[in-house]
């Protein structure tokens, strides 16, 4: 084999980036400042991926000193040692000429793309000075701190609190908030899915074969192929999960809730639900049942275009397979402003099936403390939570204006409330925005408003790997090192039994980049807040987590992923038997051979709540699960919907070389009948116009979409000129979606109406 030198590798890894030298190089990029040769571990290092939020256990090693090969960590059985295209491509961003490896300061207008490199010292001291100015002039609460969810949000949010701002916002309301709030309201906690053991899975647009979650995507395929589970998919689009289903029902966008309610109707009317389960564990069944009486399959058909006879048949088949059957509760896309009741309607069907803590249904995570209690012995070590006591800031968070969102106040908050403050200055004006690894220009709705918010700030600081569409509006750019270049704290990865895993450095840090924990610690120290940052390195923090048990830490680091005991679902006799056989001091089983009597819910009633007093109090009229009419579009418009693709993560990976080479554009899916009406052929340029924006893209004429709907994958059409690999390619979903916040759960809504024309 012919030997490649590193120069060749560089060329290979980022040939597309090379052209940036001609169009204007960003001063802090690898293209401008170069990078040292690759140096790292030739032995496989177990770690954690960061190419999406699933954070799969991985194993990575430097091959021949030239490239990095990444696969899954085989210690984590449900992940199977596997990695997706995004995970496998993570190393291609290491030497990407577009990657930023020096701190930068804006020298032109916001968004103009003019930068100069500065030292970390200068960056910290100028940012600290400006933050302290804002604090004394307007108050610390006028600076917002936001982040995607992950380890870095802890570090940034500690800084926020120490600085005195209550305004810490995660990406939650742009992602899985509906499912999370619904689950919290009904069960008092998050519920996990046991898809792999399911015999019948109904899926409302949760596209697990494109929005990959390695453990769940594999579980679904295992259920389908090895256990012959039936998969029924309701989706306006012929997605990959629809393609792999036994039955695809092209439902009218936003009407999934009607079908979910009608399934409950059939289960109750035909007495196909698990009455014993409902009697023992459920609160509010009677009023729920009488509410469901009006949601007949015929009614649902009139809204959704799903034939009533199919809804009845599917409900019966589902009941037949119960309790090892489920409706998947979904993840990101918010199809309707009635998101909370849509997700509650899904969970309600699962409750009627009695699949809670049963194989193929839903369960609560069994962390060490819970698991050990059942086992009657310390099967799994419990980690300490070496937090820092930071006084709670006094001011109200900006999303605390409207009582109906009170459930979000203990969670990540309503991210998009930052654009509400722009026009209203309520509850107060915002003057600064510090963010890490988040791209709200893409992931929020109404891009123009996000741009206006950024332009209006006195200070914008972005920590990222690339100049993203959002970072293009920053005053200061702080370059984080990639996940392959950093160590982090031990993370809990418990499922049916306890598990831990840890991110570890695989290659030497490239350029003048730093891990997030260090960046925000050093900025905190510069702000005079050193007392709140006692961990000088990750090793000290890790040791505190394991209560100084060095052997345990070594074991976790050596394997990268450690799990304890055997899987436990409280109402599954087989699993409980295996559990008690393994642990001599285990809690005695109930008469029926389960731990059913131990199943409690952290709700006000201690039961699963089909009616919520809590929700009724904050949003009168919304305590019960109901259908409400929603208007998505004008009669002369088409539905616009969007979703995920397997080779990109939302708006986070479009610049990564390997992935950009696979896909850097998003064609708009248009049905042949609709296309014919407009004289559109595949490849034609088309314009989509919504109530807030207009986008030009390319048509893909396909039968895989309803005639009344157009679809595009999200995350494309970036408008900043720094992202040369992706700018102005495809349609920008965030620019078409109006700023609509779903009641109670606070979700950004991802369905709207658009006009289509050929250009």
């Amino acid at each position, binding site marked *: *084999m*012919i030997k*490649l030198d590193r120069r*060749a*590798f560089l*060329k*290979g890894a980022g*040939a*597309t980036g090379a052209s940036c030298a001609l169009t204007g190089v960003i001063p802090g990029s690898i293209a401008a400042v170069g990078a040292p040769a690759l140096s790292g571990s030739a032995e496989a290092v177990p770690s954690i991926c960061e190419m999406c939020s699933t954070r799969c256990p991985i194993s990575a090693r430097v*091959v021949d000193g*030239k*490239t*990095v*090969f*990444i*696969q*899954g960590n085989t210690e984590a059985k449900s992940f*199977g*040692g*596997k*990695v*997706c*295209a995004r*995970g*496998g*491509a993570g*190393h*291609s961003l290491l030497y990407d000429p577009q990657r930023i490896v020096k701190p930068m300061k804006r020298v032109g207008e916001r968004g103009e793309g003019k930068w100069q490199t500065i030292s970390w010292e200068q960056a910290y001291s100028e940012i600290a000075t400006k933050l302290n100015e804002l604090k004394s002039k307007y108050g610390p609460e006028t600076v917002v701190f936001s982040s995607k969810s992950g380890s870095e949000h802890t570090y940034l949010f500690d800084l926020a609190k120490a600085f005195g701002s209550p305004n810490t916002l995660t990406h939650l309301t742009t992602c899985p908030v509906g499912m999370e709030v619904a689950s919290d309201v009904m069960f008092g906690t998050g519920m996990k899915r046991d898809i792999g053991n399911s015999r019948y899975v109904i899926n409302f647009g949760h596209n697990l*074969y*494109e929005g*990959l979650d*390695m453990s769940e*995507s*594999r579980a679904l*395929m295992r259920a389908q*192929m090895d256990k012959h589970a039936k998969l029924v998919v309701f989706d306006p689009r*012929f997605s*990959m999960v629809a*393609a*792999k289903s036994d*039955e*695809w*029902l*092209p439902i009218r966008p936003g009407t999934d809730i009607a079908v979910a309610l009608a399934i409950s109707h059939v289960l109750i009317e035909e007495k196909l639900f698990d009455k014993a389960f409902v009697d023992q564990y459920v609160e509010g069944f009677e009023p729920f049942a009488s509410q469901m009486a009006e949601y007949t399959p015929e009614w649902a058909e009139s809204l959704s275009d799903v034939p009533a006879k199919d809804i009845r048949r599917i409900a019966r088949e589902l009941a037949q397979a119960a309790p090892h059957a489920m409706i998947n509760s979904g993840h990101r896309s918010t199809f309707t402003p009635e998101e909370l009741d849509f997700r509650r309607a899904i969970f309600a069907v699962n409750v009627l099936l009695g699949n809670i803590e049963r194989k193929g249904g839903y369960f609560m995570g069994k962390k060490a403390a819970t698991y050990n209690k059942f086992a009657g012995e310390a099967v799994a070590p419990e980690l300490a939570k070496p937090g820092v006591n930071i006084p709670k800031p006094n001011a109200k968070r900006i999303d605390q204006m409207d009582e109906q969102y009170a459930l979000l106040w203990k969670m990540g908050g309503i991210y998009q409330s930052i654009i509400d403050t722009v026009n209203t200055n309520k509850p107060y004006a915002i003057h600064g925005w510090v963010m890490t690894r988040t791209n709200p220009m893409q992931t929020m709705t109404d891009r123009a408003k996000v741009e206006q918010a950024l332009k209006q700030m006195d200070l914008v600081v972005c920590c990222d790997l690339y100049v993203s569409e959002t970072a293009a509006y920053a005053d200061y750019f702080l370059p984080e090192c990639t996940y392959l270049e950093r160590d982090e704290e031990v993370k809990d990865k418990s499922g049916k039994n306890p598990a831990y895993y840890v991110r570890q450095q695989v290659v030497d840090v490239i350029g003048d980049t730093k891990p997030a924990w260090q960046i925000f610690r050093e900025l905190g120290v510069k702000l005079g807040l050193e007392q709140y940052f006692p961990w000088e390195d990750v090793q000290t923090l890790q040791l505190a987590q394991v209560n100084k048990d060095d052997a345990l830490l070594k074991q976790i680091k050596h394997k990268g992923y450690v799990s304890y005991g055997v899987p436990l679902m409280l109402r599954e006799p087989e699993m409980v038997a295996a559990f008690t056989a393994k642990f001599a001091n285990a809690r005695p089983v109930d008469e029926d051979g389960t731990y059913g009597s131990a199943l409690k819910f952290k709700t006000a009633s201690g039961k699963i709540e089909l009616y919520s007093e809590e929700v009724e109090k904050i949003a009168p009229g919304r305590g019960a699960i109901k259908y409400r009419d929603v208007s998505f579009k004008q009669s002369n418009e088409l539905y616009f919907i969007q979703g995920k693709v*397997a*080779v990109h993560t939302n708006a986070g990976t479009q610049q990564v*070389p*390997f*992935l950009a*080479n*696979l896909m850097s554009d998003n064609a708009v899916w248009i049905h042949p009948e609709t296309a014919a009406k407009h004289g559109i052929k595949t490849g034609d340029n088309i314009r989509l116009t919504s109530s807030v924006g207009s986008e030009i893209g390319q048509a893909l004429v*396909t*039968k*895989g979409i309803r005639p009344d709907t157009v679809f595009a994958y999200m995350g494309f059409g970036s408008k900043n000129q720094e992202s040369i690999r992706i700018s102005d390619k495809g349609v920008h979903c965030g620019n078409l979606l109006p700023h609509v916040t779903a009641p109670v759960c606070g979700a950004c809504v991802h369905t709207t109406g658009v006009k289509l024309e050929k250009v």
Partner: protein
Amino acid sequence: MNKRYVMVHDENKCIGCQACNVACRSENQVPDGVTRLQVRVEGPYGEVPDLHFKFDRVSCQQCENAPCVKVCPTGAAYVNDDGIVTINHEKCIGCQYCIAACPYKVRFINPVTLTADKCNFCTDTRLARGEQPACVTVCPTNALVFGDANDANSDVSKLLNSAPTYREKVHLGTQPRVYRIPARKGGIEA
């Protein structure tokens, strides 16, 4: 007995996610603009709601009777003892006869080495280290099975004995060693 390496691609399990494509590129340092392996998702075919996609693994088919080997003027292209169609880069003069001859259109000139290149089941990288090919290692849904068809106890032999399979363009007499398990939905355009 010699090994006879074969691969099976299960089109029921394949979701077209390109994890194989990326892993191959990473392990074998395949430059941008060329590819040893991709899965083409074609379609949808059929009528609503009975649509289906076709999942076509596009890579060297490791023919027993390889046209590329027959036309190679220097002996750079040859079938190894283990059945893998291999390229001796020292002997390759970049004449592109093999590229023209390949009925599957999976050979290319590597822009870095300037010699012919294609999938070789990771023979010089992962197989040499006793590992499975990169694509098989990472495939999220276990759609790929690789192994020695001359070993009756190998997973791949058992699979070939139990599952219906087809191969591309067998009428040309190439006897490809990449087998495909047809998707239960939809037809096959073999």
